[in-house]
């Protein structure tokens, strides 16, 4: 399959305000290709540039130099802005900032109405999207009565209804409690697996990144790691230097390995860790 996102030598700095000197670059030469259907997690501490990068994927920000091509559309092409945003939808951190209507199904239909989708088609897409995020039975509720996790799922349904090829989520679970986080992660994974939508997930949670196909790590405006989750997390020293955590099971495996035991440092799931410990304890 082809690449849905192509970023070439992307540099970005905010416009200087007034007479100040030009502010420093936030993104310093990003090259990144993402394949259609991939589930990519982007990690990095606050200020590493990961949100700025995300905002380039649907033209909320435009490159200072370099280019961002999403599904064949150059994000700098103003005439194709609406088309671009239909193909690459974005979900933000705060659920309360992205709900516009007083009824769940109207909120999901909002973008479709703006796009002039015919009624029958709109009805079908709204229902399907709400079913996809398991919020169909709440379709006539007021969003104010929903939990944070449910609101985020409604926001995701609003994006799915546009039938995008790609969805970018900027820390969608940061303000949710553990059960809300689980709901949202399950929805994201299902959407990726069942509908083949490409997912770019910006997150602080290592356990979420561990569920992706590929982890991109950013630091000071550059990509410093880009590999499968188990390969990225097994570099515990480097991750700590980048002010990032690794899953607890990876850290434990790494500690045991350092102490001279034969255990793979590429453990990222609980079950792998359980098996490895059992093996270690029953070895002769």
């Amino acid at each position, binding site marked *: 399959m082809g690449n849905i996102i192509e970023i070439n030598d992307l540099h970005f700095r905010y416009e200087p305000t007034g007479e100040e000197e030009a502010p420093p670059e936030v993104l310093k030469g990003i090259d990144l290709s993402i394949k259609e259907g991939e589930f990519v997690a982007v990690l990095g501490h606050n200020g590493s540039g990961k949100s700025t990068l995300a905002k380039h994927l649907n033209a909320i920000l435009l490159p200072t130099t370099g280019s961002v091509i999403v599904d064949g559309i150059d994000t700098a092409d103003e005439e194709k802005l609406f088309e671009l945003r239909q193909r690459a939808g974005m979900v933000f951190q705060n659920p309360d900032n992205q709900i516009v209507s007083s009824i769940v199904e109207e909120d999901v239909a909002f973008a479709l109405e703006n796009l002039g989708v015919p009624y029958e088609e709109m009805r079908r897409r709204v229902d399907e999207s709400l079913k996809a995020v398991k919020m169909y039975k709440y379709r006539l509720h007021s969003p104010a009565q929903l939990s944070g996790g449910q609101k985020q799922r409604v926001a995701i349904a609003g994006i799915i209804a546009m039938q995008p090829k790609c969805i970018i989520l900027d820390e969608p679970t940061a303000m949710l409690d553990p059960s809300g986080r689980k709901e949202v992660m399950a929805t994201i994974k299902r959407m990726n697996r069942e509908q083949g939508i490409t997912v770019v997930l910006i997150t602080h949670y290592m356990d979420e990144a561990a569920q992706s196909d590929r982890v991109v790590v950013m630091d000071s405006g550059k990509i410093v790691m880009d590999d499968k989750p188990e390969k990225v997390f097994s570099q515990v020293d480097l991750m700590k230097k980048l002010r990032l955590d690794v899953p607890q099971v990876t850290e434990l495996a790494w500690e045991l390995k350092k102490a001279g035991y034969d255990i793979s440092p590429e453990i990222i799931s609980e079950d792998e860790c359980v098996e490895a*410990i*059992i093996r270690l304890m029953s070895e002769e």
Partner: protein
Amino acid sequence: MPILETQELTYVYSPGTPFEKTAVDHVNISIEKGEIIGVMGHTGSGKSTLIQHFNGLLRPTSGKVLLNGVDIWEDKTKIRDVRFQVGLVFQYPEYQLFEETVFKDISFGPKNMGLSDEEIKRRVYDTAHDIGLSEELMERSPFDLSGGQKRRAAIAGVMAMEPEVLILDEPTAGLDPAGRDKILSHIKAYHQRTGNTTLIVSHSMEDIASFADRILVMSDSKLFCFDETVKVFSRSEEISQIGLDVPQITRVFDKLKKRGMDFGKEVYTVEYARNLLLKRLAEREAR
């Protein structure tokens, strides 16, 4: 005598309407001076309603809140003093910064307490030091600070009142791992200097496990448990069932137990797990 105590504390939202909901249901707890308490509960469990009773923001529908043995609602006119004795830091407190300079913002609370200029200054600088804000920042606008600095400045504003009980509602929400560790270590520094009772609401058991003496868990408006950290973790399966997150490492050791490998200990930090495993492995080799 406990510093903070509740007796059959009950709070009902919108009583007598179709929206009537009991948010806190006959809760009895008792907290000793100097303790660090972790407060947990899923969204809607009643934990925020509960903590808003501790400084009199909410008045119990029935039951009592006692501060140093005195019912805080015994004399309604004294409720203002209760708010100086029990400081509450809300979620995302950085949205509440408003003054021209960081110094003025942090000194707002102490000033309202009617303290002398000298005492205010001491408190502002002491808390700024605990929370890791350098003196150069004191004359800056709070709006020019970084996100993490803003959060810390807002927390310092409550700490500077030196309340006997400090309550922080999810002080690390939305921060990256490094920012999270930083805030927690600064809160610990404040606790060490003042010895004041501290309550921290958090969704992260991993955070709480690393510093709380005791953990209070709310579920469905009721007190689910209030016990030493290690004992709470020994009920990790029930804790998962009520929608809370158990540290990954604890889940691994639960699974090992099910597979017949019982280490006989509650494991909730990586360090502890590492030491435990290394010890067992060494014992095996010695045999």
